[in-house]
């Protein structure tokens, strides 16, 4: 999608003025992981196309959700954004600076501005370090707050801010529950007061009961600090609660981008439709019976993705042209950009989506908590 086509007025919070340049701009980003083979000399025989030519941008203060199934490239995208991975090609422009081309020093400076919250609160905290030293690590790395008293004070403030007992700064991560650990991770991420926070499935490893607390923490921080947030999830219901706009990825491609209300009420891409239709409903007996459109077959291998439209092998609406010609990401209705030759019609949407999701476009955060009930509590107990 081009900047010109950017739907106006999509920014919900109004924190950033329209017309201001976006905080981060992704242009034709590509990440291929080579597959090699060879007896003595390794030669490249292919590539896993984890992220294959995606473009989007995020405005200041906005929350962008990125959703998709496991392996669709969303985590890779997150890592590319903060340059934990080097892009194969394409550009990531952060505040006017190309992240992909930044050298060591520039990168270090950039890392003060953009931070990441990780998926697994168990492995994202070094088990051999105290909470205090984990949260103060950013200061140590960037040589800030050199006096230990100062640093400790700041760490305790941060702990307090994320809802941890500041007294516990000398404890080790294993002495905390999963939710608390994720709070530690958040505290570390906001320590340097970054402009951008990339949250890579921050709650997927948590107990359902804890998820909402962490989400609310992030939401609160975003408001308070004017953070720009990129929120990655495989769970559409979580995203809706959090995000102003949502990008849907499939096999390394962005297939649909839309303001969340629009996306949830009227998804245009059949894949988005399928994802939405898979979301379980909180009160099934209260709602209308729907035709669940479940995806069949496996996700094709990203090493050898289908030609043209990547979804055509599983798409209920696929026709000849879908395997011949790649659909472009273009405005389909409202502010909804989708890459599809045959977008969903309103009738199809009504038939398939649960009422709880599609019924009122005005559903807001107030009851969001209740909706976060899904299958994602895969994490172990605390």
């Amino acid at each position, binding site marked *: 999608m081009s900047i010109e086509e950017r739907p106006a007025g999509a920014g919900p919070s109004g924190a950033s003025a329209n017309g201001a340049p976006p905080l981060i701009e992704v242009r034709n980003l590509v990440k291929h992981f080579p597959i090699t083979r060879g007896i003595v000399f390794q030669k490249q025989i292919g590539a896993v196309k984890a992220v294959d030519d995606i473009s989007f941008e995020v405005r200041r203060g906005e929350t962008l959700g990125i959703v998709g199934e496991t392996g669709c490239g969303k985590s890779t995208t997150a*890592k590319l954004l*903060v340059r*934990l991975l080097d892009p194969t090609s394409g550009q990531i422009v952060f505040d006017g600076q190309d992240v992909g081309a930044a050298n060591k020093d520039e*990168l*270090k*400076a*950039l*890392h*003060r501005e953009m*931070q*990441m919250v*990780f*998926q*697994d609160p*168990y*492995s*994202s*905290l*070094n*088990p*051999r*370090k105290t909470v205090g030293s984990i949260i103060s*690590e*950013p200061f140590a*790395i*960037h040589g800030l707050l050199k006096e230990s008293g100062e640093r400790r004070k700041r760490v305790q403030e941060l702990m307090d801010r994320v809802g941890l007992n500041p007294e516990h700064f000398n404890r*080790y991560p*294993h*002495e905390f529950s999963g939710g608390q650990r994720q709070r530690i*991770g958040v505290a*570390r991420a906001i320590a*340097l007061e970054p402009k951008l926070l990339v949250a890579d499935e921050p709650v997927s490893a948590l107990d359902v009961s804890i998820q909402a607390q962490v989400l609310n923490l992030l939401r609160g921080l975003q408001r308070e600090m004017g953070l720009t947030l990129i929120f990655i999830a495989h769970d559409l219901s979580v995203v809706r609660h959090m995000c102003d706009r949502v990008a849907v990825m499939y096999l390394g491609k962005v297939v649909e981008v839309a303001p969340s209300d629009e996306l949830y009420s009227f998804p245009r891409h059949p894949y988005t439709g399928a994802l939405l239709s898979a979301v379980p409903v909180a009160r099934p007996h209260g709602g209308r019976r729907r035709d669940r459109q479940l995806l069949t077959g496996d996700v094709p291998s990203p090493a050898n993705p289908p030609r043209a439209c990547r979804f055509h092998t599983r798409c209920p609406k696929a026709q000849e042209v879908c395997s011949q010609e790649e659909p472009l990401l273009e405005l389909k209705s409202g502010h909804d950009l989708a890459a599809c030759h045959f977008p969903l019609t309103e009738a199809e949407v009504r038939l398939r989506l649960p009422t709880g999701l599609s019924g009122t476009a005005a559903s807001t955060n107030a009851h969001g908590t209740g909706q976060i009930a899904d299958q994602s509590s895969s994490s172990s107990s605390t």
Partner: protein
Amino acid sequence: MSVGISDFSLEEAEAETGAVELVSGEIAARSPWELFLRRFREDKFAIAGLAFLLVVILAAIFAPLVCSLVGAPGPYRADQNALDIFGQPTGPSSAHLFGVDQIGRDVFSRVIYGARVSLIVALVSCVLTSAIGVVCGLLAGYYRGWVDTVISRTVDAFLAIPYLLLAIGLASACSFGNGCVGGLIKPGIPVVVAVITFTSWTYPARIIRGQVLSLREKEFVDASRSLGASDFRIVFKELLPNLTAPIVVFATTFLPQAILYESALSFLGVGVQPPTASWGQMIADASNNINTQWWYMLFPGLALLFTVLAFNFVGDAMTDALNPRSKRA
């Protein structure tokens, strides 16, 4: 030393990192150190071993004092009167507690002084081996790519060389004059240490590399990197502290191996050179006359056996204490 260091397996080491979290999960209130101590203290053999080692270490440090206390003449004085008319040594007597050797030197004194060699060689080579192995393992595991290829292939090549052959070759190469590597490795103990290190660093390197390969996938590494941490910081401040358990386990298993290794080299005549007393070399000297001169073979051998055994007891207990999933009784 037919089996060498294969006593320590990768699987066992890999169990360690898992173990770390399990320890913490179980009893959150106790620090790992307390936990370790508590477990260690339960092992009576280990306590006995530790006590014995303490005695050996003290005897080694105060060897001259020990010798003069029991009236032994020291390790270098050859007493012609202690040899019979065939030039053969005599056995234990009041003048020579453990008898004398082929040229009339007091075996007791030499056993006591031999402890110095064994301990110094074991400690220094253990530190060097672990250090080199850990650094190589860290680099290979962390950077992967060509660094890993170079290090791993070197390790492979080292493992394909019959290590005793390599050791004998190196020991002879460095045992003359100013030593080798431009005089850096001097004949005597430094050569033995160098040889042991040179042929052993691959073991910790392999273990650590394996550990790092899995550790580097942990998100805290990414987290640190996303904060702008340098590779150096990540490797030494983030990864290294997580490797304490495997390193300690390696070191405690390696210490007794190093003592045996030194004695084997000295036995083959390429280790510590006479007249410096070394247990292995004393056994070698004695080996031709075991029939009638049992004392010369027996005492250094027992010293060797008990010291290594004590190290093994302690090492076992430490491994267990660090690894609650250990399968030992």
